[in-house]
């Protein structure tokens, strides 16, 4: 894995995320510049995300399937945090929706949001892998 310096070239106006952006480029830029070695932290955070996020969403799905909304809510909460730290803005929002539905014990809505989260996770993983490939 090389340092995350080949960052996205799909600009949104003024660096702000648009609804079409899988990743928030401004967040990525800030993360890229943090630390003594530019790009290293971002690379580490992406590695953490790629290792953590799929398992967290699977945990959500299994919990929803078993009717354990509390458990699903906790896992969705962690997924939201993991996504936020790599600027995966759309996944962050969907994970928040999963969490809110789960905490309100709305099982069907939780399952529906989790399905959307799966699609968003796939997009985020592809985009982030593209940064460190």
């Amino acid at each position: 894995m090389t340092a995350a310096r080949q960052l996205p070239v799909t600009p949104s106006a003024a660096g702000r995320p648009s609804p079409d952006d899988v990743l928030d480029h401004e967040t990525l830029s800030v993360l890229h510049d943090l630390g003594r070695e530019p790009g290293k932290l971002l690379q580490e955070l992406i590695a953490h995300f790629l290792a953590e996020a799929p398992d967290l969403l699977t945990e959500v799905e299994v919990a929803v399937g078993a009717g354990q909304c509390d458990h699903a809510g906790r896992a969705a909460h962690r997924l939201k945090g993991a996504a936020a730290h790599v600027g995966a803005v759309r996944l962050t929002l969907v994970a928040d929706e999963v969490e809110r539905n789960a905490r309100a014990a709305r099982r069907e809505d939780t399952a529906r949001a989790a399905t959307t989260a799966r699609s968003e996770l796939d997009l985020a993983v592809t985009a982030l892998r593209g940064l460190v490939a």
Partner: protein
Amino acid sequence: MRRDPQQCAHGDGSSAVRIVIADDLGSTRRYLRAVIEECPELEVAGEAADGAAAVALAEALQPDVVLLDISMPILDGADALAAVMRVAPGAQVVLLSGMEAEVVQPLLAAGASGFVPKGVPPTELIGRLGDILGRDLTKAPRPGRERRAGRRPIGAPSP
């Protein structure tokens, strides 16, 4: 509040504020460590991945601050807060959460010093920590950081 993400205060001769980071997500701990290490006035004393480990570390290290995720395995929320306050009475406990204010409010009433939302950018994180600690942590940049200040966002269009 929006401050320059590359700016933190130099120390004033006093020792650094020693912080224990307690969060079950490795990515969150890594992010928090990176932001905290940007500030000469702050120092990461240790990291814990669950509530019980946070209590043990707080007792062993007696830090100035415990940055405590309120949703962690083994021990969390009010129980973790109470335990940390009991074993490290000199530590300020700053809650870390992505949850709504109504979840956090009872913990603030129970003795937590403040609250930092998860996912906030470095600038806001440092600003909020400074507000809670009563210090301005945003005055002067760490050496070598000025050159990167003012960079346009990655992916943003050229002027």
